[in-house]
């Protein structure tokens, strides 16, 4: 009897959002009670900040197009990792020689360490992500056209 009532409640799709949100809030509360979480100091892709570099905070050492060491999980699987950490367009190269604050401007990143991670060592993530974007775009434009 009670199962029938529960299943009746769930079958009303207006109720699933409050139910799920309530479950999330409850679980997060449990998560708060189970704190602290030990932060492992040994991390992948650690940051080293060199305040005197004009590419700060994305300078991972070395001039452009020379290979540097990146703290990847399986370095042997991505032999080209570290080559494009400091790829600069002529304009941004000019800027990097003029100012110390290039790393925090929008022109700094045609390449860089993030592109290295996104395109190379963790490339499969980046394949799935535009695919999701593509799917969502297809849904939106289909509904927009058929409205």
């Amino acid at each position: 009897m009670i199962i029938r009532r529960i299943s009746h409640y769930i079958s009303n799709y207006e109720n699933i959002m409050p139910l799920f949100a309530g479950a999330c809030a409850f679980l997060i509360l449990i998560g708060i009670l189970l704190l602290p979480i030990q932060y492992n100091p040994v991390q992948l892709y650690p940051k080293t900040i060199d305040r005197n570099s004009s590419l700060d905070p994305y300078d991972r050492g070395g001039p452009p197009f020379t290979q540097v060491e990146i703290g990847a999980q399986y370095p042997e699987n991505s032999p080209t990792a570290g080559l494009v950490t400091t790829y600069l367009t002529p304009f941004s190269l000019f800027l990097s020689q003029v100012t110390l604050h290039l790393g925090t401007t929008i022109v700094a990143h045609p390449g860089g360490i993030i592109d290295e991670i996104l395109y190379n060592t963790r490339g499969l993530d980046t394949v799935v992500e535009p695919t999701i974007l593509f799917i969502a775009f297809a849904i939106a434009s289909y509904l927009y056209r058929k409205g």
Partner: protein
Amino acid sequence: MMIAEYPPEFLIGLVILVIGTIATAFPRPKDYLTRLINLEIPGWGLLLVMLSYNEALALFTFGAISVLSTYIYVRVMQKKAGGAGT
């Protein structure tokens, strides 16, 4: 390390994040526009937290994406108001 020794933008960011979340969760007056404007506050808190970890690119992208999502929300709100008002 004591709490007071953490970077100030980290602490301020967390405080703003919680205040903004409360402001957005229980806005007053409770209409769509107030809630949308209040959404900027926790966004600012998150930006400060990202800043304290030197995550510049994530910060830029978050800014750009929140502009886009504001477009999307305002469009829906205008469409909804358009049916009732005019």
